[in-house]
């Protein structure tokens, strides 16, 4: 018998806010953390980046840890703060999601090269929390975050662990910015997901952490009904033109969750604001017959946070269900996909939100889909 998996607590740290609540206030208010920067190599560009003086990055253990490691530690501590979980216990497992880990340290010749391996980096974090279980690290490009949750849900079914701490982070390094620049995929303005005039991504950074368990919390709780993945097997750096990979994953997730298409109330799309991604998603939503749902992307607020995106955006979605408030899709003005979508443009409490769906797609052809449900 399959056990239910619940979100016990969470934490989001982005340049938009240093707690989940701060993030949500800004998200509902339609605020963006994406700013204009310039550098002599690639001129003007837009990204969501922490102020180097930011207090979230200068914890007491600051000097011993790198930027991404400090983000992980700060976010995990936040998620643990309201709970009495002891991370030194054998029934607690850490699952990490990151695409590039400490890649910003590649320029630092004094840095321990081995720590560029994300598995090694993860050990530094679990050691900090005195956890001796071998950490799991998911690194499947931009679907890493959703897949770390997928891994954790399966692991919880086996009853080996009572609590799984799922945490995802990436930093907006010159490495990644240069790469997207070389692809000519960076938006020349704050990115505009699903809009007619969208012109590419804005890269962001941040960390999201959720703690999962199979014990139902007493209060109203968010249950993870299903998580699935698929591969386009089509192109490394571009999505399928038909959206069949994503629609397959959506249909498989709805089947696993035993949810009908008209029951999906709200969709947190991947919505990177590239021409191809948003178009592909609209086709997939049509194939899965879920275009009636209220749809949004938060990339206009926090940018594309890469390996962290799936976790941060799942947390936003969970709170949107609990707040019964639909998240507005910042940057959207005019329909810009061949399938007309029901894009959310302002916060709205008009409709009861019970079931939410989250999508993600990434380089390497991967798609991942997660379905959440509010349980009273």
């Amino acid at each position, binding site marked *: 018998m399959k056990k239910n998996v619940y979100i016990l607590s969470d934490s989001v740290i982005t340049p938009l806010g240093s707690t989940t609540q701060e993030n949500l206030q800004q998200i509902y208010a339609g605020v963006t953390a994406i700013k204009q920067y310039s550098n002599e190599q690639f001129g003007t560009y837009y990204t969501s980046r922490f102020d180097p003086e930011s207090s979230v990055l200068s914890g007491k253990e600051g000097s011993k840890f790198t930027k991404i490691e400090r983000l992980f530690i700060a976010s995990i501590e936040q998620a643990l703060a309201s709970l009495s979980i002891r991370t030194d216990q054998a029934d607690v497992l850490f699952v990490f999601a990151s695409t590039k*880990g400490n*890649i910003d340290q590649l320029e630092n010749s004094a840095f321990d090269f081995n720590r560029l391996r994300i598995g090694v980096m993860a050990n530094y974090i679990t050691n900090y929390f005195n956890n001796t279980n071998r950490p799991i690290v*998911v690194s*499947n490009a931009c679907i890493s975050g959703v897949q770390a949750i997928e891994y954790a849900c399966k692991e919880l079914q086996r009853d080996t662990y009572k609590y799984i701490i799922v945490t995802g982070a990436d930093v907006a390094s010159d490495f990644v910015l240069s790469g997207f620049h*070389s692809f000519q995929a960076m938006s020349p303005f704050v990115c505009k997901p699903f809009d007619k005039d969208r012109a590419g991504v804005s890269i962001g950074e941040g960390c999201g952490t959720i703690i999962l368990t199979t014990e139902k919390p007493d209060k109203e709780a968010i249950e993870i009904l299903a998580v699935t993945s698929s591969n386009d097997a089509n192109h490394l750096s571009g999505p399928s033109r038909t959206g069949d990979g994503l629609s*397959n994953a959506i249909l498989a997730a709805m089947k696993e969750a035993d949810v009908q298409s008209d029951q999906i109330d709200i969709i947190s799309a991947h919505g990177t604001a590239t021409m191809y991604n948003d178009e592909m998603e609209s086709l997939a939503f049509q194939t899965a017959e879920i275009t009636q749902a209220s749809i949004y992307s938060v990339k206009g607020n926090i940018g594309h946070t890469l390996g962290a995106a799936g976790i941060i955006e799942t947390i936003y979605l969970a709170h949107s269900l609990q707040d019964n408030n639909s998240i507005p899709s910042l940057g959207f003005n005019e329909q810009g996909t061949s399938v007309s979508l029901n894009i959310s443009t302002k916060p709205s409490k008009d409709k009861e939100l019970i079931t939410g769906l989250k999508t993600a797609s990434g380089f390497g052809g991967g798609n991942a889909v997660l379905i959440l449900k509010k349980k009273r």
Partner: protein
Amino acid sequence: MTNIISRFCRIKKASTNDLRLDIRTNTVEEQIDNNFASIYKHIELDYPKFFKMDDLSKYGIIAAEYLFENQDWKGNCLDTEIGIVISNASGSLETDLEFHKTINNKERFFPSPAIFVYTLSNIVMGEICIKHKIKGENMFLLSETLPSEQLTNYVSDLLDADKIRVAVVGWVELRNGIPDVLLMYVAKQNTLVEQTMEFSAEQIELLYR
């Protein structure tokens, strides 16, 4: 119901003093020069895209060719019923260093999109998916050593829950130009196969040895 390893391919350095590669499958045992042009010819690969790939992806593609050699390996499985779960320790670190060379000198700043696309751990898996039309569940794990138990548990869950019917599972690591690969083709017991091994962490460790 137990799941089985119906085929495998192991690639490693022949020995400390031998630069050749030791390749072992259910039916093949050979040593070949660690040279992509000669391997390409040797395995009669007809896939010009191969030469555009980074080295990690090339070794993944080579291992997959050995794994599926002369086999109607898909049987009646749909592409979406085939899963793939790959792991390694170094991600794409060798290619990350290549890409870094194109951006670390401000006077010669010329980032290459052709290299950048390979600076993700999972691209080798994406290349195998494209070449062999694998469209089901996919997962990439980073681990300091072969995560035999995690691979077994995760893939068994997918098979037992009928989310996939067969899977390509394994380890594709590249460090200092030396590949260390184990790919396995895993299926449910009731799928028609000639030779079988139990799909278990112990068996994976035996094949990896």
